[in-house]
């Protein structure tokens, strides 16, 4: 009986995320098209709704091309190593309402440990393709993922400090309840929480190689980075791994800062928590797509500057702000102290970046007059 229930839960979760993958790939194309004054896919089925199915069939029956000089074993293994850890991540997300699969005591550690395996997959893909663009793309991707892991972990530590646990379920429980009866006790509604949420969002975008940080697969210079020599179903697996990474990252953000399955208003508590969890997750995925449509791709030096000179110091300041908040007991003192610290840090950064000849401003060497 117990086994059946577990199997059912796994089935529900995997079905949901596979469906979300299909819907998100369609929604991404539709929304991107709308933002760029186009219509998007509208041929397959009503309003193009069956486009993911058509894509899937196309990917399945496409020829699987492997370069002659490629390392066949690694070339075959790389997509699997990419997708498998991402699927594992879904196991520990706290959906709430009895749908949570495992409540690991070291949930957050598990999350980072497992998600860091995908870096090896990127390396395997890049190296085994025997293509210099692939290798360059893999090098960029690894450098980017290793760098952005630092602020990601630093930011994820703040809720751990406040909630006093590494377990994601415990963290969600810590955010239950409502202040003055209406405002939920989510971490995102604190000064350190909003900064932490933004930082987490940015860093998980970079971890998932999404725009504006998708330069490992920048078409203009690297063809498709480590994916250059992949086609057919292996490519689809990589694509799926990328999307699953986004879902898992969004799920982590929901669990750490957006109160997991908590309802935004006490009136809405009759809706089961996992539905709230999925709603929040879908909204975050929508924002990821929206960001992709809005922001241009960065340069590699800008990317590293942003990480080491912007996000890492901010994450440290945020850590201090969270400690101050925790020991001042929340309330208005916390708002003044922690909020003041963070606003001060922002003003500092503003001044430093905008007053110096900031490196992420374009320099016109030829049109100097």
């Amino acid at each position, binding site marked *: 009986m117990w086994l059946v229930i577990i199997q059912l839960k796994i089935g529900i979760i995997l079905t949901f995320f596979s469906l979300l993958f299909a819907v998100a790939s369609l929604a991404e194309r539709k929304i991107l098209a709308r933002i760029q004054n186009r219509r998007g896919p509208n041929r397959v089925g009503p309003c193009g709704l069956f486009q993911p199915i058509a894509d899937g069939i196309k990917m399945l029956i496409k020829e699987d091309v492997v370069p002659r000089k490629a390392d066949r074993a690694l070339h075959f293994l790389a997509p699997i190593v990419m997708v498998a850890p991402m699927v594992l991540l879904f196991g520990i997300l706290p959906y709430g309402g009895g749908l949570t699969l495992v409540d690991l*005591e070291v949930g957050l*550690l*598990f999350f980072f440990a497992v998600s*860091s395996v995908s*870096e090896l997959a990127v390396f395997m893909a890049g*190296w085994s393709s025997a293509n210099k663009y692939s290798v360059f793309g*893999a090098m960029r991707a*690894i450098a980017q993922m*290793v760098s952005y892991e630092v602020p990601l972990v630093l930011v994820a530590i703040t809720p751990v400090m406040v909630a006093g646990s590494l377990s994601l379920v415990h963290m969600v429980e810590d955010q239950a309840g409502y202040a003055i009866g209406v405002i939920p006790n989510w971490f995102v509604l604190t000064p350190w929480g909003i900064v932490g949420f933004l930082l987490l969002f940015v860093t998980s975008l970079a971890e998932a190689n999404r725009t504006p940080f998708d330069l490992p697969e920048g078409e203009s210079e690297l063809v498709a980075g480590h994916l250059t020599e992949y086609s057919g179903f292996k490519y689809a697996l990589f694509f799926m791994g990328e999307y699953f990474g986004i879902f898992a990252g969004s799920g982590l953000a929901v669990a750490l800062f957006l109160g997991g399955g908590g309802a935004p208003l006490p009136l809405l508590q009759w809706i089961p928590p996992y539905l709230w969890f999925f709603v929040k997750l879908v909204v975050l995925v929508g924002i990821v797509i929206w960001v992709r449509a809005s922001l241009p791709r960065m340069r590699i030096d800008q990317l590293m500057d942003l990480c080491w000179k912007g996000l890492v110091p901010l994450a440290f300041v945020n850590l201090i702000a969270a400690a101050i908040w925790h020991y001042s007991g929340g309330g208005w003192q916390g708002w003044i102290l922690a909020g003041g610290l963070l606003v001060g840090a922002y003003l500092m950064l503003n001044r430093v970046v905008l007053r110096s000849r900031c490196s992420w401003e374009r320099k016109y060497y030829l049109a100097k007059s």
Partner: protein
Amino acid sequence: MNVVLFIIAALILVGALATVCVRNLVYCALSLAATFAALGMLYLALGAEFIGWVQILVYVGAVAVLIVFVILLTAPDRMRSVGPLFSRSRILGVGVSLGVFGTIAYAVHKSGSLKGSLSMPAETDMQSIGEELLSSYLVPLEATGVLLTVALIGAVLFAREEPVEGSEESQESKD
């Protein structure tokens, strides 16, 4: 339980053997990552949950990736001929390690105090680990923090490219 331990131990040994014996450096690094992951599994099976995941996070996620990255950066020339299979240094090295292994194995086999079975120690939940780290192990913790900081700065200093004369950086410092 023991069967699981033995399977994982076999995985570890196969991975380590592949790491040592395979000629292709990339395969070495990847089987090293597999060995690290299997070690993490062994820690998990032994009940050290925290250490198991830390092992995977640090070794698979950081050290193996770093090694792989350095392999990419240094681009080892695979074309150069490898020395003879049984050179003097190689035989000497294998002999030394065999001697070390023989000594340790003999000691392990003969020791009387190692006959006891594995027993689960007292519960180690995250709470108590954290409290221990910040009370009885505070000094080592601080020392580790200093060590990691120094290592970070040292690594950055080592790996930094020295500005070449006439490059953009040195020109910028002039004007």
